[in-house]
């Protein structure tokens, strides 16, 4: 039977051969025969040895290929539908479908499907399919069904590889320290690792990076191992590895763009900050320079606020920067109570003063927290309990 197959093979074009050869001796004879034949080129192009090794495709591989094909088809279909949907949206919004970006899609969805749902994750959305459907791992095993990864049987190879690498780095750092001590050399004082401006990846971010879901305990372990690596004196030698798993915090926003002041009829420089907010209060603040320290709030002076605390809050940025008698402040504010209104004005004054103060004063204001927008809102009441967090008195029975 095998011999007959052999013969067939000899006549069909070599690119279409899917047969596998079980007997190496037979294979050898074929090679010999083909070599003696006229088609030398074909023979050279076909890697007979590897073909013969691929004896059979394992069941796992077969299933994987099947799944991968299904997934590819699905994603292709989703991508096609997304593109069509995007064009429809663009037409609905009366814009050019060719230049319609994802940002425009989000805006259009928010406009066409206004949603009052509390949780942002539950509101309608239209995102490219690769964002909606999580990425999948590529083939984890070869065609014989043997896994590529040496930690495949842990179930979470990427995560445990990360821990493995971290420990290897720790050992290297320790060995290096030993060598330095043996040589009696002094450590490099400039090599200190400064991680003030970044934080570890959150659990979700780490999961995205690893393409694996991890438990809370495993995430804690990750943090413990990385902290231990960072705490070593020579951890700066593994900076690249550490930085890879950290995310920079929001950088200096105040330095981004400080607006140039405009000039009014009297030649005074002024800056208006809109959308000053805190709690339920909304308003705008105008600062004029040079001024005499006159404060106008909704047409009244500082006595608009009856309590001392709110007045202090309004004066806080002015006193902090030492500008209390160099500028005039005009505010319009509405909504909320005295605490919210004064907080909104405080932020508005601080934000506008950026145009009138020195660079080092900006840094001081940032450290003092005056330039941070207070986006906190009242937490909603929950059903089944008397307040946002308050629970009814617990009675055993």
């Amino acid at each position: 039977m095998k011999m007959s197959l052999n013969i067939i093979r000899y006549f069909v074009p070599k690119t279409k051969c899917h047969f596998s050869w079980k007997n190496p001796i037979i294979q050898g004879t074929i090679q010999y025969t083909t070599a003696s034949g006229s088609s030398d080129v074909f023979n050279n192009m076909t890697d007979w040895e590897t073909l013969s090794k691929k004896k059979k495709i394992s069941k796992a591989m077969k299933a994987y290929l099947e799944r991968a094909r299904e997934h590819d088809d699905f994603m292709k279909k989703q991508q096609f539908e997304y593109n069509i949907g995007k064009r429809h949206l663009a037409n609905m919004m009366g814009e050019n479908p060719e230049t319609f970006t994802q940002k425009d899609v989000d805006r259009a969805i928010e406009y066409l499907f206004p949603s009052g749902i509390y949780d942002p994750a539950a509101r309608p959305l239209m995102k490219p399919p690769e964002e909606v459907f999580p990425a999948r791992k590529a083939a984890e095993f070869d065609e014989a069904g043997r896994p590529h990864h040496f930690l495949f049987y842990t179930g979470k190879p990427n995560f445990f590889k990360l821990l493995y690498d971290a420990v290897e780095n720790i050992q290297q750092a320790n060995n290096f320290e030993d060598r330095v001590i043996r040589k009696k050399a002094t450590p490099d004082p400039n090599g200190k690792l400064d991680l003030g401006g970044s934080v570890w990846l959150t659990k979700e971010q780490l999961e995205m990076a690893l393409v694996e879901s991890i438990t809370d305990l495993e995430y804690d372990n990750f943090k413990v191992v990385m902290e231990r690596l960072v705490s070593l004196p020579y951890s700066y030698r593994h900076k690249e590895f550490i930085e890879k798993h950290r995310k920079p915090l929001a950088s200096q926003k105040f330095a981004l763009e400080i607006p140039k002041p405009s000039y009014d009829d009297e030649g005074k420089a002024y800056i208006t900050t809109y959308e000053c907010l805190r709690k339920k209060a909304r308003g705008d603040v105008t600062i004029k320079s040079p001024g005499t320290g006159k404060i106008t709030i909704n047409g009244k002076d500082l006595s608009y606020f009856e309590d001392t605390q709110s007045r202090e809050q309004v004066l806080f940025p002015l006193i902090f920067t030492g500008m209390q008698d160099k500028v005039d402040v005009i505010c319009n504010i509405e909504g909320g109570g005295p605490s919210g209104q004064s907080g909104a004005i405080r932020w508005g004054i601080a934000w506008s003063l950026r145009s009138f103060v020195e660079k080092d004063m900006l840094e001081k204001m940032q450290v003092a927290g005056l330039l941070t927008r207070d986006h906190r809102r009242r937490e909603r009441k929950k059903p089944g309990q008397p307040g946002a967090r308050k629970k009814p008195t617990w009675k055993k029975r």
Partner: protein
Amino acid sequence: MAKNLRIINKYTSTYLFNKWPVVTRIRDYGKATSFPDYFQNPIFRKEDQVKLIESNELSKLASIPVKPPAVYQTSSAYQDPLVNKVINHVMEMGKKQLARSLVEKAFENIKRKQIQRFHLASTPEEKAKIILDPKVILHMAVENAKPLLQLSPIKRGGITYQVPGPITEKRSLFLAIKWLIEATNEKERTVHFPEQFAWELLEAANNTGKVVKKKQDLHRLCEANRAYAHYRWQ
């Protein structure tokens, strides 16, 4: 009118490609009720900032997100954390304005009494001894009222022993302020809080009075219960 204005303010119009206005609503929901934990506490007091500049840490800290100062915090020279703390302890049912006015009234009473004493004093040495600043008096009073030891009940063999031990800084501050306010509230109905509080503060600052006696009683009891001290770790 004001309500209509507010609605207009809520909807900000933006022009897209100069074609037609799109009204987008600024939403109030789904916002966080607290800051993430990597936000640092603000450093806004003048003297703390001077310290930062001396140690060259200011520019380093400037790249880290910072929480905004709370509503009761300012960099004003009149701001004192201990006074804030006392106001919060005096406060009942969240009436902070009232509490603040009471404490300020007490300060006024202290100032009046001290100025009276100042004028009654005959020699300059006696005059120099009298402290006129009510905040300094408050600090002295709280410092004198702070206990150094505490008794904690520990059960051994079915008998509860009052075991003396060291006290944390925070708890001793809490007890000092609590005792001062408790002593103030033990008053005649006709006497107002600010007057009695001013009197208690002056007494405590002078290392006399009910509160200091209470502290000394506690110390004496701790001394008497020394024999049980080993129950803290056995």
